[in-house]
């Protein structure tokens, strides 16, 4: 009989018993609802073992790639180890490699990439501030190519961690980061699919990672990146993005400014509105939405109504911390 390792304990599964049924039988407290592979509330991550196709049915590609599976739809035939999504992770310490200003409010933080630190560009990590407060920052670096981790940190007025990063953090300082998590990243397999990337503010960080990852993996479909801010000064990495647009025929960079008259070469209007207006029907497209929560929420619904499949909409809303 196979053994299911979970939360530091081991449970013996009976023949043809699902992982969920096994844990329930052992009075383990876990989430579940439909027990029919539909509601996804019993989703877990398989740390040892390989999820079956049936146990990953309906999950997003990004989750499948991270070995997430539904406990109700998996019968263990060999020993497996499972963990709750996003938990059971150990933080690691690393050094600050470089700090560079991208604009008046945004600092580019490069950290030494710890050994065996794996991630997908666009995922986020939690960085610990001086008193243990944690904040999430998205990864803009290329996992397969850059030997550093790159974060874009906006100085939030009164922000405990961003304020410390902007005013006190120095090169060679030691910081603690969690493993990368999140499902907003590029997945290969459909190189011809058109991609629409919409971001506001430092929502560019994950999108910059995703864009470069897509190019690195030789994505062939059109890639439109809309980056928005209220003023032109709020945008950043403009030259880098213009260069990518110039070099790659399938990359189209659209800087958007929502207030006042924008400088030449920029579009007047909100990034999400312009993107949805200009691209029109989105059937078959893959959409990435990163930035302000209200923007992400409304753009998500509009992209869906414009024909994008829900499975093809990846969203990373920046939810302000409350503490």
């Amino acid at each position, binding site marked *: 009989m196979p053994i299911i390792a979970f939360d530091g304990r081991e449970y013996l599964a009976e023949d043809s018993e699902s992982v969920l049924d096994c844990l329930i039988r052992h009075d383990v407290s876990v989430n579940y609802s439909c027990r029919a592979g539909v509601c996804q509330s019993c989703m877990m991550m398989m740390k040892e073992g390989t999820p079956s196709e049936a146990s990953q049915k309906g999950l997003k590609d990004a989750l499948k790639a991270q070995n997430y599976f539904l406990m109700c739809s998996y019968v263990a035939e060999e020993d497996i180890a499972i963990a709750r999504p996003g938990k059971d992770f150990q933080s690691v310490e690393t050094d600050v490699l470089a700090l560079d200003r991208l604009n008046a409010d945004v600092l580019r933080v490069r950290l030494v990439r710890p050994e065996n630190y794996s991630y997908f560009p666009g995922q986020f990590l939690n960085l610990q501030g001086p008193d243990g407060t944690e904040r999430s920052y998205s990864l803009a670096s290329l996992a397969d190519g850059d030997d550093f981790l790159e974060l874009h940190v906006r100085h939030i007025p009164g922000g405990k961690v961003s304020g410390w990063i902007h005013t006190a953090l120095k090169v060679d300082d030691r910081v603690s980061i969690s493993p990368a998590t999140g499902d907003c990243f590029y997945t290969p397999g459909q190189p011809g699919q058109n991609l629409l990337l919409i971001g506001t503010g430092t929502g560019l960080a994950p999108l910059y990672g995703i864009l470069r990852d897509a190019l690195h993996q030789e994505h062939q479909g059109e890639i439109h990146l809309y980056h928005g801010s209220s003023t032109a000064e709020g945008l950043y990495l403009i030259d880098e993005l213009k260069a990518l647009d110039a070099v790659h025929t399938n990359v189209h960079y659209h800087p958007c400014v929502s207030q006042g008259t924008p400088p030449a070469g920029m579009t007047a209007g909100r990034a999400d509105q312009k993107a949805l207006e200009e691209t029109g029907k989105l059937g078959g497209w893959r959409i990435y939405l990163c930035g302000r929560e209200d923007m992400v929420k409304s753009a998500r*619904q509009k992209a869906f109504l414009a024909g994008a499949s829900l499975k093809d909409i990846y969203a990373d809303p920046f939810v302000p911390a409350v503490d």
Partner: protein
Amino acid sequence: MSDSLFNRLGGDAAVDAAVDIFYRKVLADDRINEFFADVDMDKQAAKQKAFLTMAFGGPNSYTGEDMRKGHAHLVARGLNDSHFDAVVENLGSTLKELGVSDELIGEVAAIAETTRNDVLGR
């Protein structure tokens, strides 16, 4: 049973094909979209999928009590027969779009109909 309604419709694959189309119709329908606005789209899609699986005669563990509890807050906001009819209509047009025969659509509508009183808390 190979000739169950669920299998004749195409099983899981049919639910997958229907869920985006159905949810999109519901969100675009001004008669009912206020009840679906401002909710987590992933959770809502999972619920739509569970509902379609049930309406297609597929495996589900819904009880009348679940239906009552799940919709009580909407009934309090005015959910009534006209809204229920609109959802069934969207369900029918979704299936039509997918090329399902009128006969099978009738069977699906009949299953959906069995939930009416529970959904409306009667």
